[in-house]
């Protein structure tokens, strides 16, 4: 007996991501899926950002890591609600993990939720988790060839934050090439140059953020 089916195999994740999105919308929370390679500065950017905006908006964080609670502890010190997910080996967060961990956050009291994905420039871009936008970080030390080597993440992200800009004169890296290639892949991508170490450029990013979530 032949059965005709027309089911997308990754439907389950997309369906749960849609449910998450609805849940966040009903709670009035704007959700950002933050992605980058390991060590590009996701947690440092969150620390800078939360310190700059926590008097104006109520922020929560979901931290995704393969193992450990180091990042959640860093966020916890800032006095905002945080949940740590340990993926136990998985290289990205999926919608189901977010559905579970969101229950532990006071969503109704939040305006903005950051989901810090597992450090990886490939897989996180392939899985929706229920976010409003994806924001990615590329740090200068990773090199200016990365947009063309990892195109999907640049294509999927609404914002590109170029971090470690304070090292610009010490490295053989062209910020212009990063900008040009990222914009070729995604003409709508919004680009900020920042240094989480010195604080350079953080204001521009947080001003943009505050305007976009209100």
């Amino acid at each position, binding site marked *: *007996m*032949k*059965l*005709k*089916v*027309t*089911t*997308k*195999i*990754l*439907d*389950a994740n997309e369906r749960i991501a849609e449910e998450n999105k609805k849940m966040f919308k009903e709670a009035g929370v704007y959700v950002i899926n933050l992605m980058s390679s390991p060590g590009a500065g996701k947690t440092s950017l969150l620390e800078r950002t939360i310190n700059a905006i926590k008097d104006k908006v109520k922020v929560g964080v979901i931290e995704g890591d393969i193992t450990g609670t180091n990042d959640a502890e860093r966020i916890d010190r800032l006095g905002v609600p945080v949940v740590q997910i340990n993926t136990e080996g998985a290289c990205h967060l999926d919608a189901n993990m977010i559905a579970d961990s969101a229950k532990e956050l006071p969503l109704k009291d939040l305006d903005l939720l950051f989901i810090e994905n597992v450090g990886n420039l490939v*897989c996180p871009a*392939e899985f929706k988790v229920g976010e409003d936008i994806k924001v990615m970080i590329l740090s200068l030390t990773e090199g200016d060839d990365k947009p*063309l080597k990892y*195109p*999907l993440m640049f294509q999927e992200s609404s914002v590109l934050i170029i971090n470690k800009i304070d090292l610009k004169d010490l490295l053989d890296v062209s910020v212009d090439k990063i900008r040009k*290639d990222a914009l*070729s*892949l995604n*003409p709508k991508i919004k680009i900020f140059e920042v240094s989480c170490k010195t604080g350079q450029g953080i204001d521009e990013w947080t001003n943009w953020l505050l305007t976009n979530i209100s």
Partner: protein
Amino acid sequence: MHEASIASELLNIAINECSKNGYSKIQTIKVIIGRATGVMTDALLFAFDVLKENTPAESANLIIEEIPVRGVCKDCGKEFESNEPYIVVVCPVCGSFSLEITAGKELNITEMEVN
């Protein structure tokens, strides 16, 4: 890509469809996979064979049809087709990055044989 989780998900869907329609054994599952999904078919077949044990699909064959990546360049207007196993980033004719991908991202179950 994530062949083991894809194999697991496709087995779930197939087993559900099978029992929903009142059957107990799956003989074949046909899927189409676009080249731009990055799915490695060998890894998917391997994961499928491991995961199907002790399920209604334990004697099932997985038949994979691969779909090439197709698209149109927004700059030169030329259509292209590629069997490269990943997303086409650059127009093969004019080198532009401004592409519209029209096929190659499929990851669907299309048909099953059950009894």
